[in-house]
Structures are given as structure tokens and as C-alpha cells.
């Protein structure tokens, strides 16, 4: 999916969290958005996912404006969001958590499901198989039958990723997926993201850990105080003096 943000702004109580931000992510690109604390990364993330509405500006998925759509309708347009906090469904198993997402976008619809029509049963089998594949990719296959809230926190975040993948997204939004992970977990995550990128999935990755994104991303957008201060390949961005200044403070 081609993601375009045009002049997006959002203020909180008179303070611009994101101000006139534009960026274009080409289909199949892995874009990282970095910036110091308070740069507006999470706000921009929410403006794209639909958790927040923009005060001004446009968000386009494959050319269609979506900035007025609520989050669930953006999800149905092919966006999957993975939050930094572990937002999983308690009271359901790990497998059910992953399947809920796919159900909301199933073709056969709720009526077929309620009547248990053959189309629904076929969907159900397909979804279950797809869900197990997603759980295997994220290393959760052995936990499929466990209650989601029993998982350690790191695994709950993997579960969010599995849930997002099971919805077969065309754009994957990841909010600081590496934060709080141990080195080995971080390596596994990097491998998974690289694999998804190789399959042609468009990915937008918001990350605090600069080293983590610099070796993964095709292009990097740098935010500071709600504005884009630099954009380019990791090597280009690293060389820009304003990026160094934003991270280290003015010299």
C-alpha cells in the first residue's frame, strides 16, 4: 500500500504535537520514523492508524483520503497496528486473540457465521490455519491454547504482532516494537520484520532505538518538535547536522 501524509497537524491544548508533517511511503518500503522524546512520533502514528483525528491535513491509503475514517474502518482498509503497550484481549486464548481480528474482516459475514453456513465453516478453517501460521512466525505456537493474560509481557507484544499479521495487512504500523526486549528477542524481531519486508509488505516503524532502525529501514524520517527535520536513507540521515543536533542537543 502507498501511504501519503499531507500537511498533517494535531495540537493538544494549544501545543502542536505534530505540525504540518508530510511523508510518502512507497509500496513495499520499510520506513522508520525516529526522533527524540516528545518529537511527535506517537501522535503521527495515531493519526495514521486513526486512534487520533488530525486537526488539519490528509492521510491517504493508495490515494484514498482516510483521515475522517474511524480506526476500525482504516483497519478494514488494510492497516494493522501494533501498539507499544500490550493490548491483548483478556478472557480469551492466544489463538482466539489472533482469530478475532481475522473474523472482523471475513468475507462470509456475521449472518453466515450465526447460521453456521458452509461458507463460514470454510472461513473458520482457513482463519484457524492462518492464525497458527502467524503464531508460529512470532514464536507463540506452543502457547496457542493458553489464556492471553497468562503470557509474559514480551510475549503479549508478540501476540499483538501475530494478531496484526493474521488480518493480512497491506500496511503494518509498529510503535516502538523493540523497546524493552532482550537482545535475543530483538534479533528475532529484526529477522521477522526483514522477512515481512521481503514479502512486499509496506511497514512504518516508529522507534526510539536509532541503532535498531538504521540497519532495517529503507528510508528514515526524523521528527523533532512535531516537524520533519530530515528524511533519506539511513546513511544520509545520519550525516545530517540537524539530526545530530536534535539527538545530542545544539553544540
Amino acid at each position: 500500500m502507498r501511504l501519503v501524509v499531507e500537511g498533517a497537524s494535531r495540537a493538544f491544548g494549544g501545543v502542536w504535537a505534530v505540525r504540518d508533517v508530510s511523508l510518502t511511503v512507497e509500496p513495499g518500503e520499510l520506513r522508520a520514523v525516529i526522533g527524540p522524546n516528545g518529537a511527535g512520533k506517537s501522535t503521527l502514528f495515531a493519526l495514521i492508524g486513526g486512534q487520533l483525528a488530525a486537526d488539519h491535513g490528509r492521510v491517504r491509503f493508495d490515494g484514498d483520503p482516510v483521515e475522517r475514517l474511524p480506526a476500525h474502518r482504516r483497519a478494514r482498509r488494510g492497516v494493522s497496528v501494533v501498539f507499544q503497550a500490550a493490548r491483548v484481549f483478556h478472557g480469551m486464548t492466544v489463538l482466539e486473540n489472533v482469530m478475532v481480528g481475522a473474523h472482523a474482516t471475513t468475507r462470509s459475514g456475521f449472518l453466515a457465521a450465526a447460521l453456521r453456513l458452509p461458507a463460514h465453516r470454510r472461513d473458520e478453517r482457513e482463519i484457524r490455519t492462518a492464525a497458527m501460521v502467524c503464531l508460529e512466525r512470532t514464536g507463540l505456537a506452543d502457547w496457542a491454547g493458553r489464556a492471553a493474560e497468562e503470557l509474559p509481557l514480551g510475549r503479549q507484544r508478540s501476540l499483538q504482532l501475530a494478531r496484526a499479521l493474521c488480518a493480512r495487512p497491506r500496511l503494518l504500523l509498529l510503535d516502538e516494537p523493540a523497546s524493552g526486549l532482550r537482545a535475543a528477542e530483538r534479533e528475532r524481531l529484526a529477522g521477522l520484520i526483514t522477512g515481512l519486508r521481503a514479502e512486499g509488505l509496506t511497514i512504518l516503524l516508529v522507534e526510539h532505538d536509532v541503532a535498531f532502525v538504521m540497519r532495517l529501514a529503507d528510508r528514515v524520517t526524523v521528527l523533532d518538535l512535531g516537524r520533519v527535520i530530515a528524511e533519506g536513507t539511513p546513511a544520509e540521515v545520519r550525516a545530517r547536522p540537524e539530526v545530530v543536533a536534535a539527538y545530542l542537543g545544539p553544540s
Partner: protein
Amino acid sequence: MSDLVGYLLTGLGIGSGFALVASGLVAIHRVTRVVNFAQGAFAVLAAMLTSTLLAAGLPHGLAEVGGVALGAAAGLLTGLIVLGPRRDSPGTTPGTALIVTLGLGVLAYAIEVLIWGDQPRSFPGVPGVAEIASARVPAHYLLIIGVAAPVFLLMALFFARTDLGKALSACASNRYAARVVGIDVRRMGLLAFALGGALGGLAGVLTTPVQQVTFDSDVTLIVNGFAAAVLGGLTRPVVALGGGLLLGVTQTLAAGYGGGAYQVEVALVLMLTVMIVQAARAR
């Protein structure tokens, strides 16, 4: 002994009504976080319409279904007002929504008095008296239990087994995440309100033949239903069911062995005790 069996069965019948109201409260609160004080009005509206339909010559069964349908429609309407008319509106805060439902409950009084007057109404239920273990119980109480029990079973299956039920549970668990996976949280909220309306309506339709109904019968229902629901913190359907049955039995026993005048007080004391204990534990 036969007295006790009789009181227990009668209590379970009355308690089933409370449990239905409580389940409606819990269904709505879990999905929308709204405490719906219009819940009792659904029961009254359903019972009133059923009495009219029966008087107009509709057969039993059909008339009751009509009443429950009105309850569901009233629930849906309440949901539309409480959650806001716009598709993407941020919604009313739960605190404000509670006041709105209170207001709607009072508005329902006016509508009910306008249409049906302020006199008690009733309609015949299952006639006769059943004898179980040498206890004599009006047969209608058995019908109440016989209808409510499978309804609770179906609800449990609905929430645990169907996609729609799971989507509702997902909203109850984490609204943020539910939206992210493409679930329309507002629509699920409206569905919960309609379901709550139907459950309230069923309670009114089932209990009216043994209790009569007036426009302000909702007070008894909501006090008892809320007392039952609050046992499980308004979020646990099974506890609400147990609470409703317990309240029904307790009140019937209190009336049978003590005095009949203290039924609502039993519910209020129970509710206060639970709330005080929970508040103390939360600290």
C-alpha cells in the same frame, strides 16, 4: 419442608427476573462502560405492550415476543441516544451517560402513563398450581424458570462460541485493540443495548402474570437487578445470574418466614454491603 421447597421455587422464579435484568445491565456495561438505569423501563414497556396485544386477541407466545421486541427496540433507541448519533462521535462519558439513562427512565414514565394510564396491569400466565415434592407452587413460576434457564445457556454459548459474541467480548476487554482489528465498537455497543433491552423485556413479560406491572415497577426491578449485577462488579455475567437468584430466594424466604414488607430492603442492604466491602477492599 414443603413450605421451604415452595419458597425456593417461587424465589428462583422471581430471582430469574432479577437475573435477566442484571444480565442486561452487565451486557451493556461490559461493552460500553455505561450503567444503564433505564434497564427497568424496558421491562415495563414490554409488559405493557404484551398486555395490550393479549387484550387485542393475539395468542400467548406471539404477544410476549412482541413485548420483548419492543424492549429490544427501546434498548437500541437508548443506545443511540446515549452513545451519540454520529458514527465517529467520541461518545458520551460513562458518568454523563448514567444521568442520561436516568432521564430516559423518567421520560419512559410519561410515555407509559400517556399510553397505558397509571393503574396496575397484568395478564394471565400459566394457570394452576404445580405440586413438586409435596410443595404447591403456582405453575407460572416454573415457566419463568423454564424460559430463563435456556436463555442464560444460549447467552453463554453466544458469547463464548460465536464470532459476534467474541467481538462483543473483545470490545469489553480492550476497546482500543478491538478497533485496531476492525471491530466497530460503537455498533457492538448498540447491539449490547438491544440485547440488554430484550433481556429486560423478557424479565417484564415473564414476571408480570405473578406480580402485576405499573409504570413505576422499574424501581423494584432496577434496584434488585443492580444489586445482583454489582455483586460481580457489573462485569461478570455468571455472578450476576447467581446474585439475581440469591436475591429472589432470600426475599421469598424473608417474606415467607418474616414479613412481606421488607423485600426491597433486603436487596438494598445486600447492595450496600457489597459496595462497602468492595470499596474497603479496593483501598
